[in-house]
Structures are given as structure tokens and as C-alpha cells.
């Protein structure tokens, strides 16, 4: 489980340099939190395939990858035009990070409704919302966390705070863009996002990851935490289209208070290895969540989704739909656990994972899990792995469509259910394009 010391020490060196640089700039609790997390990381290291939760995803390439945590600089030659291509026009406010470092010149926070705060951590640590950060971030470290979470906490420095006071309605989406740009040494970046939606507030968050230039090799290790207050509603989109040489490890944790609503949609298109861990805790009565996603991968890509929907209170509902399209020599992993505690009576939990294999070299490992300790519940899950229906193909071909076109049409139709759900036009378009590109590439082969 513990990696060779040489690997660890490169993180340790960068860590020590960062700690001394920040010694007077940041509150003491941040430094302490980082130190504890670093010790934890050094103790447990990166997870290996011996651990059940990482059985199907080998992170050896990250451990051996010689990634360097970025302190400053890199990607400075990026222009507003370069960044513009990755912005969602629907969003009126945004924070842009390049290689994990906040870039004020590309960001915009002036159009926010009264009371709503969208700030990078440096600003937040120094300002009046330091207490918000402290109360949500400075918690004792969870012994369950894996090495990636620990490493992210160790390098807690740059990040985004979205704070919605009681009743605040951010009508237009807020975008958080994390770009990776080529650096002297392959960059390791540790984005951190904290969303606090107090009671009766509402917001839509777009969390995007992309590579600014072609095939850049980078390692993103992100942690996003969302707190949904009583009757608050948070819509959350996560779009990951990093380069196919990138490594992307992300964790999204949400906690819902009474009658809170959380709707997460994840789109996974990029990275050679991506892993998204999701934890949604329905902590009080009447909370409801949607956790949906689409992964579309081709040769050389590996996409892993691990989710835990934790029903700890009565009368909560969860809905989960994950669809995967696998082409070429690609691999996808889905592990969805629904846990219903003893007291969580009248739980309604639905989960579905559907996979479409377009090539005979693709591989899927799926494991939907139910752990139920309350009796008055409605829980169901389903998983399928298959290919396009011969009959449906035959029908289209009999109508005069070329076989390849018919295949593409059906593949597009498979993804449609999720594409339709997206309420942000630009994301929908991007996704449409990605699907069509992938299908066109097939036509040309």
C-alpha cells in the first residue's frame, strides 16, 4: 500500500516549500490541516488494486508519474481568447484556474445577486468569509479517506468558495473552470471547491475541467464539497474533457439537510484515466437527489465512477442513472452503492447503470450494490451491458439507412436520455459534438 519513498518525497519537498511560503500568509488552521493530511497521505499512500474500492482501477501510473505540484507560473501565455473557448456563455459569473492557480483576469464575479459570494480561496481566507471556510473545511480528517483525498487536503491552497446566504437565488449559472496548460514538468494540481447553500437558497454550478493545449499530460486531483441547506436547491454539472494523456481523480461529496434538493450531472469525455468518487448523504427528512452521468470513452481511456448514496434519514429519495458508451480499447468501471440505514424508513432509491460496447476490445466492470437495513423501503437497481439491438438496426437499414449511419443514430439515441436532461444549452451542444465526433471518427475508419 505504501509507495516507494522517492515518489513520496517529491510531494513532501513541494509540500514543505509551500508550507514555509504560506507560513504568514494563511491562517494557522490551514497549515495544521495540511500537515495532518500530508502525514495521513505519507502513511497510506496511493490506493492499490488490493483495496476493494480500487479493484478495477490501477493508479500505479500516477504514483510513478513524476508529477510536480505547481507553485506558480505556467500557462501564462494563455490569452483571454484561448480561455474563452472553454467558457459557458450562460454563466454570468465565473472563476478560472490555470494549472490550479486562480487567474483574476479571466474571471468575473461582478454580476452576482446581493449576498452571494463567489471567491477564490486567497480572497476568501483574507476576507470576511474566512469563518465559512474554517467551519466547513477544518474538520477532523475522515479516517475513511483515501490517499488522493489526503493529498488534496495536504495541498489545500487554491480553490473556489461559493456561498449562498439564506434565501439567495443565483438565477444564472456560476462556472468554475479548471484548465491545465503545458508546464515544464507534468503538473499535479489540487483544485478544491466548497459550495455552501444556506436554507431556501438556489444555484446552478458548472464545474469544468479541460486541457488548454492538445495532449498535455497532467494530474488533477480535485475535491468538491457541497452543503445543501434546508429547502435549498443546487444544480451541479461536472464536465470533464481533459486531454487523453491526463489523469483525473475527483471526489464530489454532498450533504443534504431537510427537504434539500441536489441534482448532479457528470459528463466524462477526457483523460486517459479518470475516477470520480461521489458521496451524497441524505442527512435529514425529505431530501432528494439526482446523481446522473454519461461517460464516453475510446481507445486508451479508462473511466471509473464510484458512488455512495447514503440514506440516513426517513422519507428521502434518490435517483441515479449512469450511461456509458465504450469504443475502441477502452475500459469503464461503475460501482454504485445505496446504503439505507436502520431509521431511514420510506426510502425511495432507484439506480440504473447501462453500458453500450461499440468495440470488441472494450471492457466494463459494473457493480451496483444495495445495503438495506430498514424494511419499509422501495429500492431497486439495474445494470446492463450490451450492444446495439440487431432488430433496431435492421429496421433502420430496411428504411434505406447505411448500416454505419444506423449504428450512429442508435448510439446517439442511447445517450439522448441524458443529453436531454441538461438544461444548459452550451453543455448540451458540447456533448452533442463530442458524441457526433466520436461517431464520425468511426465512420471514417
Amino acid at each position, binding site marked *: 500500500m505504501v509507495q516507494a519513498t522517492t515518489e513520496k518525497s517529491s510531494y513532501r519537498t513541494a509540500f514543505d516549500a509551500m508550507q514555509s511560503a504560506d507560513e504568514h500568509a494563511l491562517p494557522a488552521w490551514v497549515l495544521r490541516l495540511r500537515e495532518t493530511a500530508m502525514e495521513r497521505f505519507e502513511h497510506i499512500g496511493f490506493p492499490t488494486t488490493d483495496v476493494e474500492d480500487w479493484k478495477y482501477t490501477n493508479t500505479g501510473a500516477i504514483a510513478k508519474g513524476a508529477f510536480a505540484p505547481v507553485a506558480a507560473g505556467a500557462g501564462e501565455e494563455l490569452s483571454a481568447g484561448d480561455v474563452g473557448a472553454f467558457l459557458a456563455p450562460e454563466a454570468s459569473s465565473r472563476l478560472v484556474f490555470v494549472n490550479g492557480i486562480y487567474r483574476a483576469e479571466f474571471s468575473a464575479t461582478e454580476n452576482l445577486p446581493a449576498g452571494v459570494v463567489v471567491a477564490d480561496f486567497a480572497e476568501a481566507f483574507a476576507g470576511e468569509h474566512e469563518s465559512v471556510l474554517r467551519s466547513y473545511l477544518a474538520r477532523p480528517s475522515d479516517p475513511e479517506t483515501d490517499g488522493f483525498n489526503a493529498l488534496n487536503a495536504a495541498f489545500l491552497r487554491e480553490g473556489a468558495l461559493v456561498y449562498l446566504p439564506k434565501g439567495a437565488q443565483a438565477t444564472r449559472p456560476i462556472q468554475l473552470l479548471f484548465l491545465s496548460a503545458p508546464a515544464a514538468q507534468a503538473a499535479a494540481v489540487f483544485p478544491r471547491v466548497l459550495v455552501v447553500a444556506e436554507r431556501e437558497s438556489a444555484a446552478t454550478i458548472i464545474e469544468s475541467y479541460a486541457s488548454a493545449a492538445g495532449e498535455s499530460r497532467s494530474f488533477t486531483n480535485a475535491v468538491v464539497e457541497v452543503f445543501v441547506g434546508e429547502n435549498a436547491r443546487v444544480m451541479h454539472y461536472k464536465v470533464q474533457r481533459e486531454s487523453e494523456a491526463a489523469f483525473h481523480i475527483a471526489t464530489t461529496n454532498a450533504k443534504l439537510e431537510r427537504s434539500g434538493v441536489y441534482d448532479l450531472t457528470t459528463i466524462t469525455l477526457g483523460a486517459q484515466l479518470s475516477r470520480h468518487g461521489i458521496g451524497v448523504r441524505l442527512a435529514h427528512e425529505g431530501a432528494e437527489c439526482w446523481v446522473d452521468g454519461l461517460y464516453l470513452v475510446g481507445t486508451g481511456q479508462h473511466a471509473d465512477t464510484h458512488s455512495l448514496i447514503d440514506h440516513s434519514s426517513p422519507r428521502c429519495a434518490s435517483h441515479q442513472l449512469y450511461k456509458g458508451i465504450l469504443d475502441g480499447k477502452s475500459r469503464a468501471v461503475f460501482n454504485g452503492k445505496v446504503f439505507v440505514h436502520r431509521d431511514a424508513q420510506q426510502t425511495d432509491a432507484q439506480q440504473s447503470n447501462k453500458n453500450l*460496447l461499440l468495440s470488441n476490445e472494450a471492457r466494463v466492470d459494473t*457493480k451496483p450494490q*444495495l445495503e438495506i437495513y430498514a424494511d419499509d423501503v422501495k429500492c431497486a437497481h*439495474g445494470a*446492463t451491458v450490451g450492444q446495439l439491438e440487431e432488430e433496431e438496426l435492421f429496421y433502420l437499414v430496411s428504411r434505406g439507412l447505411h448500416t454505419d449511419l444506423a449504428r450512429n443514430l442508435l448510439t446517439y439515441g442511447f445517450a439522448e436520455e441524458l443529453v436531454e436532461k441538461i438544461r444548459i444549452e452550451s453543455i448540451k451542444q458540447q456533448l452533442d459534438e463530442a458524441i457526433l465526433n466520436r461517431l464520425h471518427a468511426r465512420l471514417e475508419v
Partner: protein
Amino acid sequence: MSSIELLTNKEYKYGFVTDIESDMIPRGLSEDTIRLISEKKNEPEFMLEFRLKAYRNWLKMEEPQHWPNISYPKVDYQDIIYYSAPKQKPTLASMDEVDPELIKTFEKLGIPLTEQKQLANVAVDAVFDSVSVATTYKEKLKKHGVIFCSFSEAVHEYPELIKKYLGTVVPTNDNYFAALNSAVFTDGSFVFIPKGVRCPMELSTYFRINNSESGQFERTLIIAEENSHVSYLEGCTAPKFDKNQLHAAVVELVALDDAEIKYSTVQNWYAGDEEGKGGIYNFVTKRGACRGRNSKISWTQVETGSAITWKYPSCILQGDNSIGEFYSVALTNHAQQADTGTKMIHIGKNTRSNIVSKGISAGKSNNSYRGLVKVLAGAEGARNYTQCDSLLIGDKCGANTFPYIEVSNNTAKVEHEATTSRISEEQLFYLRQRGISQEDAVSLIINGFCKDVFRELPMEFAVEAQRLLGMKLEGSVG
């Protein structure tokens, strides 16, 4: 009306002890124990080697206590008696020589062994503690070329068949309990169906543990040659003891081209008392290999007993077009724990598997389905359908589903569906307003829930299984 609560369980009626003199060896396990067992059974050299190899593997292995969803105190393997046989030579010319005490015991269990009372059309091999005491209808089966005898007898009579097949489906280093079984197994049943024969009757083995200090380690090997067919049933009971007892069996099935094996189990080992004291640890490895083209292996199990059940009857679908099936009802009550399911490994082309699992949890029990469907890259056109339903009775029990699906072939089609719910109030209300008592209504609903599995059981067993389920939950809902 709104609360369906579990109150008590009906007495376990097979909990009596037969007073019979036993030939036992001292407790404990070592190479000497194994040599002693082998010597007692007068085994040929290759069997001793098989055992010792297994034992040496076992010593290096770790007990699987972490991954299954079960918990129990550590088993002291030195505190078990590995050989216990009723005193009297078990090689008998006719039933008349069997100890009348034993015949009475099996009669009491509903398994008459004497000629005039034998069950029509079911041949029975009766295993008492470590040894087989009687096998009925042997002669009639022989006429058809079918071999059905105790494992010990087979080792002597058909060593070449044993050598050829033993350990080829479940290797001695397969898992902790299989290795232990391979080292110390004392008896079991052997079935051989020659080419082109359809076994004229149901074959059945009845296992009985009697000695409070012994474990039971039996071995079953069934070989179905080309184009043959056999249906095999297995039943088991044990007396009530406060001490936990270990039952670690291994079952190996081999089906060649166009052969079919149907294996049914009604497991009713003593489950311990309401507080979870005593009961059998049922740690069993069952696996079938569909070696031939168009072969078929079907597992049906009704698991109602045992303090802990840990078993995953599996099919290795090697032959093209071969079929694997798994039908299971697992009922846990009081403090019982079950972690059971199946593995379907698709290797050949156009292989198909079907899994239907019904779990019922009551009391403060914990019931888990754990299954693996694996489609290897060469398994063109493989097909699997899995349905796992769980029913919870009361709010102190748990129901879990852990299905693993691993697919490496794009022409494969794999579907998995699972639901968990409690008995629907609407269904109950409907039956109650028709004048059916609460208890009968619940029993009716549960039997309906299990129907897909029960109809796979041979007739006699289906009746038995329904009765058993009713009995286990009787007086339990109000």
C-alpha cells in the same frame, strides 16, 4: 395491521440426538490426523497425496473473514474431531445389516432406508457424521450403468475415475474451506452417468451431523458423460447443540457434451437459537464445469438453516452453447447470517446463464446476495440475465446485494435487476379482506415471492420447501 413483526420461530424438529456408539479419532488437525483418516479409510496412496497437498496449501491460506458480510468468532481448527463414524463397518451387503438405531434415525427424518419402505423413484445415500451408512437402489441403477455410491467406495472401486476428475473443478488451493475439505473429507457421494444414459430416478444424499464435537467435511463428485442426464437432491439436518459446528463441503460437477446436471439443495442445518447461540457454520464450495458443447448445469437451492451460510454455487461455462442456471431462496431469521450467491464464468461462445435469487430477511438477521457474472473476451454472444429480489420482514434485519459484472466482449448481453421491499400492505389487505388470516396471507405472499425458484425444484422437494418456509416463519407475523 400496519406492523408485521416477527415473534417466535417454531421449534426445530430435527434437533434430536441419536444415541449410538461412535468410532472417533482425537480432536485436532495435523499431517498425522490426515494420515490416520486415510489409513482408517484404507485409501490408495494417491488419495493421501491429494490430502497432504491440500493440507499444506491450507496452512498457507487465510480464512476469508473480511470480504463476506458475516461475522463470527474465530474457529479453533484444533478443537474439532475430524473423523467420527458409527461403530460398525459401513460396507454392508444389505440393509438388514445396518444398525437399527440408524435406520430409525433416518426414518424419523423422513428418509426410510429399508427396502419395503424406500421412497419410490428416489435413490438415497445416507451420510451420518463422517461416513455413508447406506445407499438404496444401487442394484437397479447399476443395470443402467449408473454408478451411485459413497465416496469411500468409489475410491476403491473406481480409482481411475476419481483420479481423473477429483479436484479438477475445485482445485485443492481454491479457497480456505475447500483446501480444508480436501485435506480431511471423510465421505460423500459419487455419481457417474455414462454416455447416453438418462438416470432413471432422482438421486439423493441426506446428510446428518450427530456428534456434537465433530465437523462434517463431505465431498460430492458428479460426472455426466456425453448426452446424459441426472437430477440430484441434497438434504441435511443436525441436532441442536449450543456449540457451533463446522460444515465445510465441496461439490464438483462435470458435464460433458450435451449432458445435463440438475442439482437441488434444501438446506436445513440447525440455525442456532433465537439469540444466535449454537448452529452450523455452513461454509461450502460448490462448482460445476460445463466442459462439453451444449451442456447444462442447474443449481437450485433453498437455504433456510445454518447459523452462517457462505456458499456460491458456480458454473464455469467452457463448452460452446453451454448453459448455467442458479435459482435460490435464502431465508434468514433471528440471528442468522447468509452471504450467498453464484458465479457464472462465460468462456465458450453463445454461453447463457440465468440467475434468480430471492432473499427473505426476518428477525435481526442479515442476508446478502453476492454474485459474479464474468464474460471473457472469447465468449462471443454470451448472455446473462440476473434477477435478485429481497424481502424484509421487520426493521431489525438487513438485506444486501453485491453483484459484480465484468464484461470483456461486446457481443455479450448482461442484465442485472434487483429490488428490495417489504410485504406490500395492499396485498396483505386484499387477502385479509377475503377472510384469510394474517399468517396465511403472509405465507401466501412469501410463497408467491419464491415461486420462480420453487418451480425449479423436483416435486417432492417443492412441497417440502414450501412447508419448511411456512414453518420457519410460522407464528412470526402479527
